[in-house]
């Protein structure tokens, strides 16, 4: 039983490591995103484009995956994610999560 748990845990850690993004690569891949979200992800060019800077990594990654799978529907983003690999999405999420921005928690 313990062995199974250890194997399951190792597999879980392994899959997390595989999905981990590289912020440096993400910056290089973010050129297409700049037009709407701004170079730092904190200066969107339209009022209804979200800020990405400082957003949680796993939420950003899920958003990109959902756009790709169609679970989240948006005409602009649906077109943007078509050519992104799983690694591209992880890298982009890592890059924007690391940028400083005005997103925060209030009660």
């Amino acid at each position, binding site marked *: 039983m313990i062995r199974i748990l250890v194997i399951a845990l190792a597999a879980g850690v392994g899959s997390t490591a595989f999905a981990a993004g590289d912020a440096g690569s993400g910056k290089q891949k973010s050129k297409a995103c700049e037009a709407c979200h701004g170079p730092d992800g904190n200066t969107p060019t339209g*009022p*209804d484009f*979200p*800020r990405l800077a400082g*957003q*949680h990594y796993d939420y950003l*990654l*899920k958003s990109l995956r959902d756009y790709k799978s169609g679970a989240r529907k948006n005409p602009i983003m649906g077109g943007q994610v078509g050519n992104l690999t799983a690694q591209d999405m992880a890298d982009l999420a890592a890059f924007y999560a690391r940028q400083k921005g005005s*997103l925060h928690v209030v009660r």
Partner: protein
Amino acid sequence: MSVREEGPHQHIGVELRGLFVARCDPYEIVKKTPALLFLFLIAALSAHAQTGNAEAAKGKISMCIGCHGIPMYKTVFPEVYSVPLIAGQSPEYIVKALQAYRVGDRSHPSMQGIAKSLTDQDMADVAAYYGRAGKAGK
């Protein structure tokens, strides 16, 4: 086209190319003006986005703070991930996100349920609250 006065009630008849005659009583028009203005106002309001009131949102955010008010809080169903930071997003984006949950363009079960319970005015108020919080946090 000719305009002529007739009778004691000051009826004005407008004759167009002799095909039909439209009769307009100035008194009737004045009587109906408030109703016309009201209809115009309704049309204008529905054509434009609601104006949010951050103060009014304070009675409406109890549903939000249980998740979005806790730093690093994670949702666990149907997937595990951190709930997004929303304070500091633009009000326009927050409204768009809520509308997407309402119509099913976004898929989180709790957020869909909450968004369906909100009126357009509720969404605008909540968006104004979290959008304003963003400005204060800069």
